[in-house]
C-alpha cells in the first residue's frame, strides 16, 4: 500500500521543524539564565530587606539623594546587550560595596554572607551570558555602528553614569566614616537600585 510512505513523508516535515526548534532551544540557554537572574535578583532584594530589622529613624536626617540615573534604561528600545551590561555594572558595583568588610558590627555576618553570595551568583550568571555574546564579535561591531547612527547613548556613557552614581554612594560612605547610619542609608539605596533594574529583567526574557 502507498499509505505508509505518505505517512512517513508527512512526518518528515514536523521532524525537520522539530530539529530546527531543538537547536533553537539549545542556543537560547542564555535566556534561561536570565530567568535565573530574575530569581536571584529577587532573592537578593529580600535578603537586603531582611538584613536589618527596620530602618533606624535617627538616620533619616543623614539621608542623601544619590540620584539614580534612571535615564540609562528609560530609552525606548534598549538593546538586550545594553541591559545586560548595565545590569552587570550595577551588580559589580553593588558587590564591591558589600565586600568592604568594615561593617562587622552593623549586620549579622550570616546575613551579610548571604548577600555577598547572592550578588556573586548574579555576577556569575551575567558573566556567562556576556562571554557568549562577546564571541559574536562581528555582530557586536555591526550593532555598535547601528547604535551610533541612531543616536542612542553609547554603552560607555551609560556605564559612566552608573559609575558616577555608585561613586557618590562610595564617597558618602567614606565621608561618614562607614558609620552605622551611613550603611543603613546605603542599604536602602541599593535596594531602590535593584528594584529599578529588576523591571528590566522582563525585557531580557522577551528578547
Amino acid at each position, binding site marked *: 500500500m502507498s499509505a505508509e510512505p505518505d*505517512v512517513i513523508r508527512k512526518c518528515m516535515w514536523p521532524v525537520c521543524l522539530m530539529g530546527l526548534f531543538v537547536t533553537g*532551544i539549545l542556543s537560547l540557554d542564555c535566556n534561561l539564565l536570565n*530567568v535565573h537572574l530574575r530569581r536571584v535578583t529577587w532573592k537578593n532584594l529580600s535578603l537586603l530587606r531582611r538584613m536589618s530589622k527596620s530602618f533606624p529613624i535617627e538616620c533619616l536626617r543623614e539621608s542623601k539623594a544619590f540620584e539614580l540615573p534612571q535615564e540609562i534604561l528609560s530609552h525606548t528600545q534598549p538593546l538586550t546587550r545594553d541591559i545586560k551590561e548595565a545590569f552587570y555594572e550595577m551588580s*559589580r558595583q553593588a558587590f564591591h560595596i558589600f*565586600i568592604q568588610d568594615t561593617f562587622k558590627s552593623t549586620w549579622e555576618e550570616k546575613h551579610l554572607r548571604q548577600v555577598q553570595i547572592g550578588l*556573586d551568583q548574579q555576577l*556569575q550568571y551575567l558573566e556567562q551570558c556576556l562571554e557568549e555574546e562577546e564571541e559574536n564579535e562581528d555582530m557586536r561591531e555591526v550593532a555598535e555602528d547601528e547604535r551610533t547612527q541612531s543616536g542612542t547613548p553609547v554603552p*560607555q556613557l551609560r556605564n559612566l553614569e552608573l559609575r558616577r552614581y555608585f561613586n557618590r554612594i562610595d564617597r558618602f560612605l567614606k565621608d561618614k566614616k562607614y558609620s552605622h547610619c551611613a550603611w543603613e542609608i546605603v542599604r536602602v539605596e541599593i535596594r531602590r537600585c535593584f528594584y529599578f533594574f529588576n523591571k528590566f529583567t522582563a525585557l531580557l526574557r522577551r528578547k
Partner: protein
Amino acid sequence: MLALLGATTLMLVTGAPWVLPAASGGTNLKSPENGRVCIIDDNFILQWNSSRESVRNVTFSAEYKIPGMDNWKKLPGCQHITSTECNFSSVKLKNVYEKIELRIRAEKGNSTSQWHEVKPFIPFQEAQIGPLDVHLEAEDKAIVINVSPPGTKDSIMWAMDHSSFIYSLVIWKNSSRLEERTETVYSRDKIYNLSPETTYCLKVKAELRSPRRVGFYSPVYCINTTEKHKVPSPENIRIDAKNQVYVLQWDYARENTTFRAQWSHEFLKRIPGSHSDKWKQIPNCEDVKTTRCVIPQNAFPEGIHRIRVQASNGNSTSFWSEEKIFNTEMKTVIFPPVISMKSVNDDSLHVSIGAPKESENKSVNQPYPLIYEVIFWENTSNAERKVVEKRTDVTFPNLKPLTVYCVKARAFTENGKWNKSSVFSATVCEKTKPGNTSKTWLIAGICTALFSIIVIIYVVKVLLRCINYVFFPSSKPPSTVDEYFSEWPVRNLLLSTSEEQTERCSIIENANTITVIEETNPIEDHKKYNSQTSQDSGNYSNEDENSESKISEELLEQETV
C-alpha cells in the same frame, strides 16, 4: 597746527596696540600645541609640543578646572616646566569620572603666550592599566599565583574595580615554547596539571570586563616546580546530592591515608589578597580513612562554594587538591511532570504537561524554568519521536487513525554549569479516532435527513388527499364525462346525484277498474280506452313510478291492517 595735533593723536591711538606689545619685550610667544594626557593607573602625565621656534628660556605652565570650580587653578607639578611633559598626579582628584579641562601656555620672562586648551577628558576613560605585581609559589604539580591588582591599595582610579580585574596568563615550559597554555585566573589562583621538576615561565596581563580594557603583558616570570611530593594529592573530586545529604568522593591510589576536606565561599576569589584563613572545615570530613564522606545539607549555606581535599599519612601532608566548585542548587530534585493525552481529531493527539508533583496531593514549587523532553511513539513500533518543548501543550499532527500512541516526558533545567533532569513520567497511551468517520457520518446524516424530509412531505401530501377525498368530496365531474355530455339538462339529469328530481303526479285511474269497463261497452270502452290510454300514455312513466309507490303503499296498508 590743530590738524597736526589731531593727526598725531590719531596715529598714537592707532599705533598704540602695535606699540604696547613691543614694550612688553620682544617677539610674540606662540602657545604650545597638541596637548594630551597619558594616564597609567594613578599617574597623570601631560604632554605637549612646543611651537616651531625653539626659543630658549621658555617655560610652560598649566591650569585645570573641574566642574564646581569657577576659576582656573594652577596645576600642581606643571608650573614653569622646561621640558614638554609634566606629571600632575599630585592633584588629588576626588572623582575620576568627571570631566577635567586643562590649558597650557608658554612663558618667557614676563611674557606669556595664549592659552592652549587641551580637549576636555574624563580621567577614567583615558586611563590605562599599568604594570602588575606578580608573586609565584611552586608546588609539585601546580603553581600558586598571586597577582596584585593594578595601582596601589589606595588607588583612586581603580578604587571601584578592585574586585573586577581578571588576569589572562600564558604559561609554557622553558624548554619548549610551543606548548603554551592560556588561562584566565583570579587574583589568587592555582595553575594545575604541571609536571614536577620543570621550569615554567609565564606572563600575565590584567583585563577589565566592562568597560572592556586590556593591559599590557607583564615581564616574563620563571619558576621551577618542586620534585614530586611523597604524599600525592587526592584527585578527581566530585560531589553529588542525594536524598538529604551531599556525598563527596575522590580518588586516591594509596592505602592507610587520612583525609580532610575544607570549603570556602566562591565569591572570595574575586577579592584580591590572600584568604588562606577563610577555608572552613567540612563536618564529617575530618580525618576520614575512606575516600568519601557524607555531609548533611545544612552544612553549607545556599550558594556557590569551593572544596579542596588534603591527604595525610601521619608524618606528612600532601598539597591541597584541585579546588572543586559546587553549587548548592544541584541538590534540588526535579520531579517528573504529570502528562495527559487526548485525541483531538482523527489524526492528531494533544498532550498537556502538568506541573510536577511530589506525591499524590503535594504539588512542588518549582522555581526554575523547565524544559520538557517529550518522547512519543506508536505502541506497536519502536520508532520514537523526541521533542524538546518549553510550552506545556504539544500537539502531534498527521497521525494514523485508530492507532494507539504512547507518550512519556521528563523535565529538566539546563544551566551552563550543571544539568539536572527528572526521571521519566508514567507512560500514557491513547488511541486516535477512526479515519474519516466524522466526515462520512456527517454526509450520511445529512443525506438521510434530507431524504426523510422529502418522504415525509410526500406521505403527508397523499394522506391529505385521501382525507379530502373521503370527507370533502369535490362537486365537479371528471373531465371525460364533460367531453361526451355537452347538453346541459341531460347532464344535469345524469349527474345530479345530490337531489332526486320528482314530478308531482296525481293518480287518474286504478288499473283494476279498467278491465271491468271493457266487457260492457266495447265501443265506449275504446273511446274511454283511448282516452285513458292517451291520458295514460302521457303518464306511463310516472305511473310506473307511482304504481311502484302505490304498491308499496298498499303493501304498507295491508301490513298495517
